């Protein structure tokens, strides 16, 4: 039985008082998770893996003491997928996972709790953490992670992985180390939103929607978390407060301008009423790092095609930020519009603001609060959350290009987005502001 089918069969036993004492079955070997997936304003998917085939139970509530609502998925599995439903938006829930009504594997407490997303629409301060090409599972990846944790001092509200999430082949064991173990504590509290990179694709196939990447993630195909149904986990969208997120598959899905993904993207952009639009995918439309977006042959033409075919749709739809990885460095553009050719074809009029985008520099990047097509977007390559590599780093659309480890933080508060690139020792290596007025 597929994971999705099991999810739909998940049985809800609400408000069932447990008759047995809440003992911890410490002997049970948990081999992955728990980790959260596909949050909506009224539901959350909790997944985990056990060494032996077991039943899947979750108990949850508004406090650790009242975490007594019981949900189970029928059957016995090593791969457990349970969806909690009928939750309230913007509310913290505490949970424990187990394999029987009195066999609990985890404690109930703040470490095992999550906040459901707020209702889409109204603004609220939101912190987004984006990691590009993190999956080396080495000390670089750990340093970037720890630097963010220390710098932030709190969990992000959302986190994104920009592809190449687990090196070198995106195998299940590599995902275990580089994705699930390395960020274990965060996975228990905040759901990860991933996109597929070329290395992930070595163990997964978008054309057949199978393999490790598709097995380990539960992603919205029917607009469950906001956005228009895509019918596939390869590309999808979701809402959080006043932000619309779009995840595209630049690796293994048809990137032609009238392909199915492009058709969906147009309709999805037409359907959103959010104030901010953030799009993320793996192959950067502009890069002169480990990859060269001027070379049509680079990565099978993926960088080129995303730029030529997909960027016009995104910009016409009013996209604000585009986040990518693939080149293992940091490259960040000026406020840009209409640059669909090679770097030699970049003209001054395509750069809508030639400054640094900084409030303490020569001014923040401004866009109209009215959702207007083609008023500029900033394109960020943040592909150094696990390693760096050499490159010319001289794309003329970039305000800044760095061969430095780090990860990206986006703080959105109302009509202001503060974007920062945080280095592996917590250094603020770049920052800029995008403001709508």
């Amino acid at each position, binding site marked *: 039985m597929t994971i999705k089918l099991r999810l739909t069969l998940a049985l809800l036993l609400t408000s069932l008082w447990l008759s047995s004492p809440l003992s911890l079955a410490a002997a049970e070997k948990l081999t992955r998770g728990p980790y959260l997936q596909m949050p909506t304003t009224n539901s959350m998917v909790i997944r985990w893996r056990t060494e032996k085939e077991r039943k899947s139970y979750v108990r949850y509530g508004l406090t650790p003491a009242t975490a007594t609502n019981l949900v189970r998925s029928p059957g016995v599995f090593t791969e457990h997928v349970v969806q909690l439903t009928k939750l309230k938006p913007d509310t913290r829930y505490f949970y424990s996972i187990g394999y029987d009504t009195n066999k609990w594997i985890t404690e109930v407490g703040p470490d095992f709790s999550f906040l459901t997303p707020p209702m889409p629409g109204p603004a609220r301060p939101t912190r987004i953490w984006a990691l590009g090409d993190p999956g080396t599972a080495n000390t670089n990846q750990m340093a970037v992670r720890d630097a963010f944790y220390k710098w932030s001092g709190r969990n992000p509200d959302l986190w994104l992985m920009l592809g190449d999430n687990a090196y070198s082949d995106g195998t299940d064991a590599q995902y275990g180390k580089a994705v699930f173990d390395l960020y274990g504590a965060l996975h228990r509290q905040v759901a990860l939103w991933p996109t597929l990179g070329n290395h992930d694709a070595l163990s997964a196939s978008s*054309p057949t929607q199978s393999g490790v990447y*598709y097995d380990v993630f539960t992603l919205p195909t029917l607009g469950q978390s906001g956005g228009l149904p895509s019918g596939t986990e390869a590309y999808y969208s979701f809402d959080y407060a006043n932000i619309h997120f779009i995840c595209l598959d630049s690796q293994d899905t048809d990137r032609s301008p009238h392909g199915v993904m492009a058709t969906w993207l147009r309709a999805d952009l037409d359907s959103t009423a959010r104030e901010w639009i953030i799009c993320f995918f793996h192959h950067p439309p502009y890069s002169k790092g480990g990859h060269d977006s001027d070379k049509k042959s680079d990565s099978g033409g993926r960088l080129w095609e995303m730029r030529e075919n997909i960027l016009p749709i995104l910009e*016409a739809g009013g996209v604000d930020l585009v986040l990518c990885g693939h080149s293992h460095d940091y490259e960040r553009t000026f406020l840009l519009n209409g640059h669909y050719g090679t770097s030699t074809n970049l003209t001054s009029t395509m750069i809508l603001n030639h400054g640094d985008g900084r409030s303490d520099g020569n001014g923040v990047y401004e866009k109209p609060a009215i959702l207007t097509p*083609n008023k500029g977007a900033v394109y960020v390559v943040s592909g150094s959350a696990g390693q760096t590599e050499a490159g010319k780093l001289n794309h003329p659309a970039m305000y800044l290009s760095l061969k430095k480890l780090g990860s990206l933080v986006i703080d959105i508060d109302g009509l202001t987005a503060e974007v920062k690139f945080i280095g592996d020792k917590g250094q603020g290596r770049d920052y800029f502001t995008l403001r709508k007025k």
Partner: protein
Amino acid sequence: MNFWRWLGLLPLLLLALPALAHGPLHEQITNVTAELSLRPNDVPLLLRRGELNRLDERWDAALADFQLAKQLAPANPEPLLGLGRLALDQGKLTDATASLTRFLAIQSNHVEGHLLLARALVRNQRASNAVEHFSRALALSTEPRPEWFIERSQAQFSQGDRHLAEALAGLDEGVAKLGPVPTLQLAAIALEMRRQGFDAALQRLDTILASSERKERWLLRRGEILELGGRPGEAVTAYNAAREAFEALPLRLQRSLAMLDFRRELDAKLAALPASPKTLPTK
């Protein structure tokens, strides 16, 4: 461990360095080549390098790897799949069809095999055969993609209008399996319009309307379909509904350039129809 024993390990460490770098395709190819130098007849390694070479568009190298793998393991179907993928990438449709047909003769339940063969057949103007293999892939897959249903309907429709009903039924199979996915419904609406199935097109449009937070564009489309169906009165109602949906939008959305175009378009449509307000009230 003493210095000399460390030194003895140096070649191994150097060999492992590219693996740690996890760089682009050519580095992975170098890694696999290093492994192959130790085990030159390792079929899984040859298949892996063949696949990496294919992804890197090193066609001749990929071909050599797959052919050697086939020679070393004649009963193994995997080299045939690799050869099929490779030939399809190169546009060698006859070769692709031959390899994939032989692959499927051994592995008849392989979803990707059927999809690849269907695509080769479409490009080779053999739509009817392609439909069979799309259908087989769809039947075998627990998680088919909307693209496959659309590709199959295109292959069906490409054989002429008499295949329209079949093409629509295939898209409906997709809706039944995946849910109300707008890309499936948009493809179906285009086919419905071709056979003047206006009511059916409207019903399909309603499913998109239901899943879309913003309705104004879909309501405009509704009016257009009604007009084409010779129902101007209902078209006016739909256009008015589009106007109401537009007016319910926050001002920041109403005043966008795209929405200004939308208003102009809606104005023009309403103005061209009888018994309707000539223009939208200006805010």
